């Protein structure tokens, strides 16, 4: 089983359900749209991967020299270079790289133990997901609810207060918020652990199947471990969630304000429908659609936030892996991680776009 199969499952199952729905119950127009959209994703991934490749090949010198430095003999370096295929013409390297991307086999780490990169990713990607998913849910929850509330009370105190919140939280560096939480809740108050994913001792008792510890501990009934993971998850997830909530709040607010200016909202009020119903059921439902699609864009911010949050809380995910590998100059790993990120972003935005087309009946021409 490919080490990244868990990740594929998590993304793949909802995607499959979605696609099934589209092709079984969708109209011809919808199907055509989805196929076109999928078709567009391929060049996008291609471009991103190529960009990654290009960027990392601009290095004067080569990965081997940079990673080994003065340590290796010229013969060793030459051999490594040949092994890594760095002696081949650029086109060949490019082709091989693309092949790697397609088969998702990124070779081995340049530095530190020759581990297979996909194995490392297999352990770390689920960790990142475990952080990112609760964070997004929190951010969406806060953003949608309070964004709508702000829009409904536009130009009055709650609106300004919430806009202030949105702006302030957006201006905070995510790693600073994390550090503050660490300081206050972990160091000073001691309510939560300072860093890490699970208590080290308890961690050895966990049977890893999915590498998503919350799931694994639930499956094996390891309650102590479950609680430990949960406790470690709180601060980083809340950090991520709060920062993102600012973005969602502002987006929701603007969309709901626009929606509230629509004629059908006035018409609904003219039928005597209560304001709260008008705002939260009619307006929000309509406004939510563009907001949800913008989640696709926020994935980028999410990943960036994950990198920083993982560093602050020493959470062993893909973000931290990236930073680690850069500091030891393991360029193969760096290249692979960034490519994986690009893939992930492309796929998520594809998913969200298709979801949007399902939610908005107007798109099914």
């Amino acid at each position, binding site marked *: 089983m490919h080490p990244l199969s868990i990740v594929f499952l998590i993304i793949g199952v909802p995607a499959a359900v979605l696609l099934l729905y589209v092709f079984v119950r969708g109209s011809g127009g919808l199907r055509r749209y989805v196929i076109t959209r999928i078709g567009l994703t391929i060049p996008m991934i291609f471009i991103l991967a190529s960009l990654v490749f290009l960027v990392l090949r601009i290095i004067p010198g080569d990965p081997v020299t940079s990673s080994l430095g003065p340590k290796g003999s010229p013969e060793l370096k030459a051999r490594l270079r040949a092994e890594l295929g760095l002696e081949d013409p650029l086109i060949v390297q490019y082709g091989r790289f693309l092949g790697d991307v397609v088969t998702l086999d990124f070779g081995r780490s340049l530095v530190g133990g020759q581990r297979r990169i996909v194995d490392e990713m297999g352990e770390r990607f689920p960790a990142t997901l475990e952080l990112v998913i609760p964070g997004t849910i929190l951010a969406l929850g806060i953003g949608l609810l309070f964004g709508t509330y702000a829009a409904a009370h536009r130009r009055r105190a709650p609106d300004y207060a919430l806009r202030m919140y949105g702006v302030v939280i957006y201006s905070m560096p995510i790693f600073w918020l994390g550090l503050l939480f660490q300081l206050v809740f972990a160091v000073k108050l001691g309510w939560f652990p300072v860093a890490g994913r699970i208590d080290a001792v308890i961690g050895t008792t966990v049977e890893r199947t999915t590498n998503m510890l919350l799931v694994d501990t639930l499956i094996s009934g390891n309650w102590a471990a479950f609680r430990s993971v949960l406790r470690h998850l709180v601060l980083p997830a809340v950090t991520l969630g709060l920062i993102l909530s600012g973005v969602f709040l502002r987006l929701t607010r603007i969309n709901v304000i626009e929606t509230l200016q629509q*004629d059908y909202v006035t*018409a609904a009020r003219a039928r005597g429908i209560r304001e709260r119903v008008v705002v939260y059921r009619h307006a929000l439902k309509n406004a939510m659609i563009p907001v949800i699609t913008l989640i696709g864009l926020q994935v980028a911010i999410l990943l960036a936030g994950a990198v920083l949050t993982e560093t602050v809380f020493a959470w062993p995910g893909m973000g931290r892996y990236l930073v680690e590998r850069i500091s030891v100059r393991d360029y193969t790993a760096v290249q692979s991680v960034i490519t994986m990120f690009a893939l992930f972003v492309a796929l998520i935005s594809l998913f969200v776009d298709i979801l949007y087309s399902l939610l908005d009946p107007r798109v099914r021409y």
Partner: protein
Amino acid sequence: MSEVIYSIRGLSVEYATRSGAVRAVDGVDLDIRRGEILGLVGESGCGKSTLGKAMMRMITPPGRIVTGELWFEGQDLMQLSERKMRAIRGGRIGMVFQDPMTSLNPVQRIVDHLTETIRTHEPSVTEAAARARAEELVERLGIRRERLDDYPHQLSGGMRQRVMISLALALRAGLVIADEPTTSLDVIVEAKFLDLLRELRDEFDLTIVLITHNIGVVAEVADRVAVMYAGRLAELGDVLEVFGEPRHPYTQGLLQAVPNIELDGAELYQMQGSPPSLLDPPPGCRFHPRCPEAMPICSAETPAFQSVSGEHLAACWLYQEHPEVVADA
């Protein structure tokens, strides 16, 4: 003379703008009689839509009702709480909007529009019962019940407009305010729509206020007509009388401007000047800068809105006693 079901007294509505306050409706008195179709006509910006919205207290900031009384079914609507007002909206007074495409929620099915309205006002009605009522209602209006499960964009323009009427009638409101209901419809659909309005008025004992800038529509279907200009009423009376023998120079100009098939090559009449800025309206009678029969008093004092002959009212010094006053420049 049938009874008055809605009485507007001294209504003034203002909008706050960056450059100052704009008085969109200025001191309007109007009685609406049971069972009539009252046409409310005027150019764009004359305040007729604002008046319509004000009748349901649907003026939102930056606009507000500055003063006035709105007597409906024995109560002054201005004194009611928002909750009671909501019961009246949709329940006792219905509104039909201009553009049915944008007035219907694009992500809500037609049936849900109706059942939601019904159940908001009568919470004890079950979903099934509400749906049954909705089916009956739309069929009466000429829409097949299967279409109820469609979304607004799947219906034609005429059908959407009929859905709008059905929404206004869902709770057997006695008064319907139609704000430019035919402006977005083509001529044939418009004709059918007007026929429908008449039928419904007879069948359900409705009173309809028809707000439009299209004189032809009013002439065809209205019983009485009120002409508005720059936020005030210019003329009011039986439609045949007002159009047959218009008293106010503005009404006369309006009627002359209507293209007539018998024009026979003559030039189209165009009223000189343009509607005044409501930020800084002309003193006295607001029409006087454009009036071919303006007198000195017209720019000095506002004429009263009073009877010219019987039930035919106009606001013009031509028909009123006026002292000899020299207008200041």
